[in-house]
């Protein structure tokens, strides 16, 4: 049995192949996402919203964790996708899947347009430009209240049953299946993207953009590509929110939403693909729990949670976990989780 040691690669091809292997812990994670259907059927609406937020966090991870673009205005694409889906439904086209694709496309186009500006800047200027852009879109949506419904939100969003069979009901069963499958599919896409030469070049850009140019890899087209993809995924997440809740209002474009998803991503650990998912799950469950216990002062335990994670778990929760696993004892107890499972055919396991 080959060991998963990180040293001694024969080349980048082997490195990528090894990264792309499915580990046991990943399979366990995705199986666990099916648990709410069985264990917590009354919480499916919450689970659905967690899945949507996890998808949004994943899209942010693609640009932040892998390309090093810190964005404080990513909700612009989330909201753009959300409103597109809402407007499609309001004006007569309530089919969920095509609405989803169109919204993702629309958000992607917007991302493409913006990426020309984004790719030219770095550091604080970039952060503030993304922030300004997000706030600008929010103000535009507020002013265009004839189109968007303004502060009252868009009225008249009614979705047709999914695949003609499954209605979006009060219990949230359809909603959770819908958001979970979308999350899984787009996760697979992102995983493929990251574990490819393109993904490697992104990491190179994140580490040192100047050096990348020196070795002949143009960074700007890569940044534009990943930004567009990230925008499209964020738009899909927003569209799912509109479709499963049949409401959309200015909150989807707000600074709070951008800041929340950033916090969740950092909490989980950026640059690890699962960081956004873990961060979203933990933050949203914690918030729901704390605000149930004390609706008025739940900011306090959440703030303490964030501070504690930073002080004791640098690089987010996943960072702390991987540090634990890399110790002697950690390897003994949890090492098997980091290897691909034995029942996977050997050509998938990689020798």
């Amino acid at each position, binding site marked *: 049995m080959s060991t998963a040691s990180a040293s001694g690669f024969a080349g980048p091809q082997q490195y990528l192949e090894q990264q792309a292997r499915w580990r046991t812990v990943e399979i366990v994670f995705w199986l666990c996402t099916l648990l709410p259907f069985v264990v917590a059927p009354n919480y499916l609406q919450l689970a659905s919203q967690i899945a949507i937020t996890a998808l949004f966090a994943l899209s942010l991870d693609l640009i932040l964790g892998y390309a090093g673009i*810190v964005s404080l205005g990513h909700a612009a694409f989330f909201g753009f996708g959300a409103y597109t889906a809402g407007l499609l439904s309001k004006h007569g086209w309530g089919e969920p899947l095509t609405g989803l694709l169109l919204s993702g496309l629309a958000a992607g186009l917007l991302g493409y347009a913006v990426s020309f*500006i984004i790719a*030219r*800047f*770095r*550091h*604080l*200027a970039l*952060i*503030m*430009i993304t*922030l*300004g*852009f997000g*706030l*600008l879109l929010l*103000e*535009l949506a507020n*002013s265009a209240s004839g189109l968007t419904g303004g502060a009252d939100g868009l009225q008249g969003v009614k979705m047709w049953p999914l695949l003609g069979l499954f209605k979006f009901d009060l219990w949230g069963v359809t909603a959770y299946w819908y958001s979970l499958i979308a999350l899984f599919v787009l996760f697979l896409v992102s995983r493929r993207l990251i574990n490819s030469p393109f993904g490697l070049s992104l990491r190179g850009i994140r580490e040192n953009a100047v050096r990348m140019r020196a070795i002949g890899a143009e960074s700007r087209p890569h940044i534009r590509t990943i930004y567009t993809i990230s925008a499209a995924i964020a738009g899909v997440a927003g569209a799912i929110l509109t479709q499963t809740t049949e409401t959309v209002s200015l909150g989807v474009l707000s*600074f709070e939403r951008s*800041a929340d998803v*950033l*916090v969740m991503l*950092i*909490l989980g650990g*950026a640059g690890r693909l699962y960081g956004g998912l873990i961060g979203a799950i933990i933050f949203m469950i914690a918030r729901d729990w704390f605000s149930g216990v004390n609706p*008025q*002062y*739940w*900011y*306090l335990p*959440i*703030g*303490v*949670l*964030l*501070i504690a*994670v*930073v*002080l004791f778990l*640098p*690089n987010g929760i996943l960072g702390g976990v991987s540090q634990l696993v890399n110790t002697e004892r950690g390897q003994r107890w949890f090492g098997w989780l980091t290897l691909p499972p034995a029942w996977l055919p050997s050509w998938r396991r990689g020798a």
Partner: protein
Amino acid sequence: MLTSLAGVLFDGFAYGMLLFLLSVGLSVTLGMMNFVNLAHCTFAMIGGYVTVTLINQAGWPFLATLPVSFVAAAAISVVFERTMFNRLYRASDLDQCLLTIGLVFVSVAVAALIYSTVQQPVQLPSYLRGSFQVGGVTLGAYRLFLIVFALVVTAALVIALEYTRFGAQVRAAVDNQRMARGLGINVDGAFAITFALGSGLAGLGGSLAIDIVGLDPSFALAFLVYVLIVVSVGGLGSIGGTFAAAVLLGISDMAGKYYFPEIGSFMIYLVMISLLMWRPAGIFGRRV
């Protein structure tokens, strides 16, 4: 026509002065140590609540509360800096963001617990209320006071920075931290003092802002965006840059609302984006 322009300039300048006081501390600390302190406005909020408590509970006159709010905000910031922030100077930007945001959340909840969510009113002394007519332009008394006060503070800061040894150390650390350390300058100590001063100024700004923008627990979050805009447009570590950016943003915000009320709310963001695209390091910034 000219009188209304003069009026807009005056009010915009006053608003800019308020933004300056609230932002200058963040600009210098960010430039000096690259420490992203999103909890900066928490100190402003603390200063505001100190003033409100002293006026409403202890009957102090408004002006007398200002030095106390400065000292209180500075003192509390020192406590945070020594216990939590100094562990993260070498940490990533994102970790610093998360810690300071966590702190903001905690401070908002604590403020709501102690003071409840109600708006805190403040009664100004009579000589600060009302207005003067100067050549057909109405000048508010409080805004005049704000402008004079901020200019005095700016002058004090510039003098301290240019003509004192400590100021020279701060300037060296902002320019090139590693070199400064190499020359034996105690950068950490200088930073601690600068941080306290910056937070104290924020507290002062918070007290002065109550009359114009009100005070409630969400103040710590609400103003953050404007402060970040001023700091990024002005350039990190530059007092002159922060001053110019604050004035520019204050006036364009006011002019936008007066002359183009339909798009008035966009103005500040459009101005920021355009300025940053033209000068990514800020107006007077040196590093990106």
